């Protein structure tokens, strides 16, 4: 199935959680903010929230700024 991650299409297997998606990019889930279809996914739900075909995922982080 296909999802959109940070504006780019990505093909993934079925039954993938937000946590597994983040790890597939070798990112540390602790430092990533995830939005699924514009809704913030709480960090404690990363393992439980499963991705579905067509989901729009945003992976964000806190960066330097003024």
């Amino acid at each position, binding site marked *: 199935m296909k999802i959109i*991650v*940070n*504006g780019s299409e990505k093909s993934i297997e079925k039954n993938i959680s937000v946590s597994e998606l983040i790890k597939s*990019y*070798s*990112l*540390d889930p*602790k*430092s*990533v*903010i995830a*939005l699924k279809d514009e809704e*913030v996914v*709480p*960090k404690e739900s990363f393992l439980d929230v499963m991705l579905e075909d067509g989901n729009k995922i*945003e*992976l*964000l*982080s*806190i*960066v*330097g*700024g*003024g």
Partner: protein
Amino acid sequence: MDLLTIAGEQFNSRLLTGSGKYSSDSLIPQITSISQSQIITVALRRVNLDLKSKSLLDYIPKETKLLPNTSGARTADEAVKIARIAKACGCGNWVKIEVISDNKYLLPDGYETIKATEILANEGFIVLPYINGDLYTARSLVDAGASAVMPLGSPIGSNRGIRCQEMIKILIDQIKLPIIVDAGIGKPSDAALVMEMGADACLINTAIASSPNPLLMAEAFKLAIQSGRKAYLAGIGAQNNNAVASSPLTGFLHE
């Protein structure tokens, strides 16, 4: 004790620092320590999926208050969205509103800033909006529930200093909220100038980060802001157009 109070919270330091533009994020703990800053701004961005880096938050001392900005927002709605995400992610309920659609001078959009401030203040956010030094915008922000106002000295990142001095002076005179001068401050004497005028605090990022020696510059800003504040509290002596001798005008040797 002369403390800075924002939304009922008290701070010893009147220097707020940014976390952008450093050659390495690993400088941030030392900058924070040397500057004695207690409030630090951060931004929210998409993760670069091709570039792995350590989380910025690992470098920010835990006792420092995070002030997420809404940079990148072009409308009130976008700013509100960024603020809500930052809060949901554990960055607290303070937010620096930045709504900018002008890409050359990065000047803030007052109308959209007021709208975003009203929405977020009603949701319980502590809102510090970045504005042009315009009295009517500032008054509307007071009514909208802002907790401070942050007028610019000159365009963001320009290091051009206090080009809006008269406008900032009017805000200091007329607005009861803390006035935090943000953007454009290029050197410690710029910060001292606005502190002597009675500004409550300064937010410095580029001037420290772009110095060849950011650690020494952080200390210089800390001292300048303390110096300017003390001068304001002491009261500056009256000016005269003519010379007024400091030494006695009698008892000269040739008399």
